[in-house]
């Protein structure tokens, strides 16, 4: 805001003789004074735009590392409440919950983890907590049940997943029952290797997160064998899509990200124009425009965030 005010003050200097300089006016004066036909491009406006853009991206990073944690914590409380409300009858009935609904409670004592697992493993679902891959077995049944969790953002529930040791146990409670698991294998695989989420004919669960905090090309996984008697359940018929396997973002967020990005830019332009048009009512413009800008920005960030890999 200081920049814009200064810009306007600059114009006033030249045109009105009060000491302000305006960019176009400066050019004209300059041309009139030096009698040169060339036009110099002033870097103020492009610099302003680039700075705003850069600051927006930095603000996005702040959003990713700060606000997603708050959102995940809030989502966890809401999801946990589902188990204790009439709506809990759905997840506790044993039926397959819809994507985004609470599917189980994961308790890993050695990592001090007690998280509500969300049905679905795209970035949209893992933003709420560890996500249970829908196109895989269900915990408690024969097959490879896969749970993806974020390593860096959204509370980073699987930040310390690699610390799980062989022989350590954990529990998954779902609508099918409470199941105990013992870790049998841990490791990291890079792209091109067999995905640890691949199906097996044993009752096991695979916990997965990205192998690196940022820009990971691989997956850190923990395989645990179920020690309870496994039950039977329908198996999915289709292989999970890339965006459900942890190393991709949610493509469903692309249109919204584009639209909101454009909207954000338009909002910035409109704000600039408003400041210029109503330069004597700067505070009014500020009060009216800032919440809108921030709302659009956070809305945009929210969708932009979903383009990040689901396990980041």
């Amino acid at each position, binding site marked *: 805001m200081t920049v814009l005010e200064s810009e306007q003050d600059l114009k006033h200097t030249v045109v009105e003789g009060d000491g302000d300089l305006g960019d176009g006016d400066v050019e004209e004066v300059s041309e009139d004074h030096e009698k040169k036909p060339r036009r110099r491009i002033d*870097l103020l406006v492009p610099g302003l735009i680039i700075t705003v853009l850069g600051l927006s991206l930095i603000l996005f990073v702040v959003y990713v590392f700060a606000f997603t944690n708050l959102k995940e914590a809030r989502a966890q409380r809401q999801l946990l409440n589902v188990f204790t409300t009439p709506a809990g009858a759905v997840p506790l009935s044993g039926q397959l919950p819809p994507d985004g609904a609470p599917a189980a409670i994961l308790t890993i004592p050695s990592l001090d983890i007690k998280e509500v697992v969300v049905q679905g493993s795209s970035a949209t679902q893992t933003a709420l907590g560890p996500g249970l891959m829908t196109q895989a077995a269900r915990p408690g049944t024969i097959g490879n049940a896969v749970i993806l969790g974020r390593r860096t953002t959204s509370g980073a529930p699987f930040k310390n997943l690699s610390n799980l040791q062989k022989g350590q146990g954990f529990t998954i409670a779902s609508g099918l029952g*409470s199941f105990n698991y013992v870790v049998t294998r841990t490791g990291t695989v890079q792209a091109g290797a067999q995905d640890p989420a691949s199906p097996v004919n044993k009752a096991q669960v695979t916990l997965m997160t990205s192998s690196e905090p*940022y820009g990971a090309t691989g997956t850190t996984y923990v395989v645990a064998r179920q020690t309870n*008697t496994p039950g*039977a359940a329908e198996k999915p018929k289709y292989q999970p899509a890339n965006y459900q396997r942890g190393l991709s973002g949610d493509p469903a967020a692309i249109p919204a990200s584009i639209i909101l990005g454009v909207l954000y830019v338009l909002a910035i332009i409109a704000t600039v124009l408003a400041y210029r048009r109503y330069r004597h009512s700067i505070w009014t413009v500020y009060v009216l425009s800032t919440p809108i800008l921030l709302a659009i920005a956070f809305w945009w960030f929210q969708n932009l965030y979903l383009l990040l890999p689901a396990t980041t």
Partner: protein
Amino acid sequence: MKKWLLCVMAGILLVSGSFLSSSVNEPPPAGAASGNLSDAQLQAVGAPPCPVSGTCVAMPCPTPLQCGVVEAAPTDGIGPDQWVYLKLYGFSPSAILQVDYCSLKNANPSDRLCAFQGTQIQAIPTATIQTLGNGSINYSFQAQQNVEDPSSVIPCTGIGGQIPGVAGQAFQCLNLDGTANPDFKQFYCDQSGNNNCAIVLVNPALGSGNGSITPSSSNSVVIPLTFESSTGNCAQATQLITEGEAGIDLLLNAAAMATCRNGGAGVVVPFNTTINGLEALDQLEKGAVQMAFTDDAQGASQQEYMKRDGFLSIPIALSATTVGYRGQMSSQGTTVPQSGINLSSNMVAGIIAGVYSTPQSTDISKCTFGDYCQLFSSLNDQAGYSQADFLGAYLRSDTSGTTDHTLSWICKSPAMTMDFAASIGGSGIETVAGEEILLGGFYPGGGAPNGCLLGDQFPAFVAQNQFFGEFSTTSQQSLKLTQFIASCSSGPCDGFGLFNWAEAAYYGLSFSGIQNASSNFVAPSNESITAGVKTCTWDGDGVCTPDYTNSSQADGYPMTTVISAVVPRNPNLSEADKANIKTALTSILDATASGTSNSAVLPTGMVPLPDNILAMSRDEIANGVGNPSYSAPNPAPNSSSKSGSQNSSSNSSSRFSSSLGSLNASAAGAGKGTSKPAPTPSSSPTYGPFTLSASMSRLMLPATMVAGALLAILGAMMMIMSAARRRLDARVLSESLGEETQNPIDVGDEI
């Protein structure tokens, strides 16, 4: 005169009638057990005929038989710590009864000492039971032999006793100064006439009606027990009272006693029955004994001996491997004995693997009335009663035929649909492989062998819960089951163990109905065992290998076993040894075979051989002992076997080689679990492995961070450059106009 005589006679008749009437209505004296009820009397209250060697008596009652009858068996010639089954009929629904173990030394029922304190042997000396809604209940109660030694100076060797319901008789063995207390209340139970003991059943609602649990002639019934003699009442016989692996001790003892009663010299069987079948074969191989008994000659480990040494297996009786249990269920807060449990092979796998600690834990499958349901609970539901909250398992840690049979059954029996209890309705189907359950339970940390878990010994494992443990003898298993039930304070519970049927019966266990290949749940009985053995494949060594996938016997018990005597076919066997072996085995068969006068003496859990198998055994005895070229004939498909064995050859002279091929194929299949049906489609993955792939979105966050920082810096630089140029322009403008201007630097700084 005539009128006078008639009056006198009428008076006599009236008095007689009154007397008879009053005597009929008068309660019978305590000790109603003096005479067994007739089958007709038992039938009147819906009870079956009185068991052999049992006692059937009626509770004292103003109206005979209307206060309930008790069938107890065995009560004659029982072992030192044998259990007695009590079956109650015709009682009031939910009647609360007291069961005591009392001395009969005192003639007055109200002054008799009864055991009141649990011991290592008799964990539950007194019990309170409650009848079910139909007025019946089954319960098993442990007797305890405690032989009095008058020459002993050691105090406190008897059973601590007190009068039930009478306060102030705390157990006190010694005086404070350490001297024996002559008032110490203790009693002995042995076969001498001076120490008779009995099970006493008290119904506090009878008699005075004041709810007293003190036995009296009007509220209790006495069931006297007699213990077996150390010589089996036959001085010449070798008495075998040691514990064997598969009830062999019980069988041979019965055979000895039967022979004795027939006036014979008794069966002298100088063989060690305290060892298990595998060790017995090992001793036979080493020449330490001349005969070995086993119930698992078809087991892989024992087959090594059979083949290596050319041993011959001679069946002497049929039996079964059972899933015995002590259990409880509850109704309105009251715990009553569990009445009946059915188990599929997977359920047994879950229980013995220690991962099935509650009925609700993980037994999930497809049901007709929903996608998921608890099979165990639905299968065993009993209207009005809550099932056990906890399940325990107590296994054999050593090699045992029961282990081999059970693992083979689990690994080979197919998963089938099961009809639920009538109170639930519908049906369900298991889609899980028993192999998975076994391996998951016994190898929770990985390292499981390939294929299903087979063999005659469980792998070393760490118990995963407190209701699970290993023991080396059936008596220890039974004791642990008893203690487990007694300690279930937080709710009803069921404790399970794998037992030979005869051993389980000796220890008073209940028997689970297990699912056969026809999807029926069958409990062990003489009929189901005889049907079950028809699924056997017999080889030239006289060994039966049961086919757990054979569904031809709808009522057959799946884990039928053949108790056999293994003898050498070594030609170097002396004629005297041959004769001894033949005599001993012939005596056993004569004493126990169906149709003989002594077959009734077989202990519960042992079934006489069907005629076709008996004929095979006699042929083996006559021709196979010490004969290396002998091959046992397949049992002829006579009336007792024609419908069962798909492998029974019509050619009774089918010989060694073809049978051997059959056996090898079966063993190989067992090792790899290939007999297990393929998993149902729902348990199979519908797509294969896939590779991990990364996307460019992984670069988004670091790129955003870098780009944001660069753009911010770049933008700032551009604005600074712009400001600097403006400042320069302003200065130029100022100089050219020659007048004072505001300091442009201030403008730039502000920017």
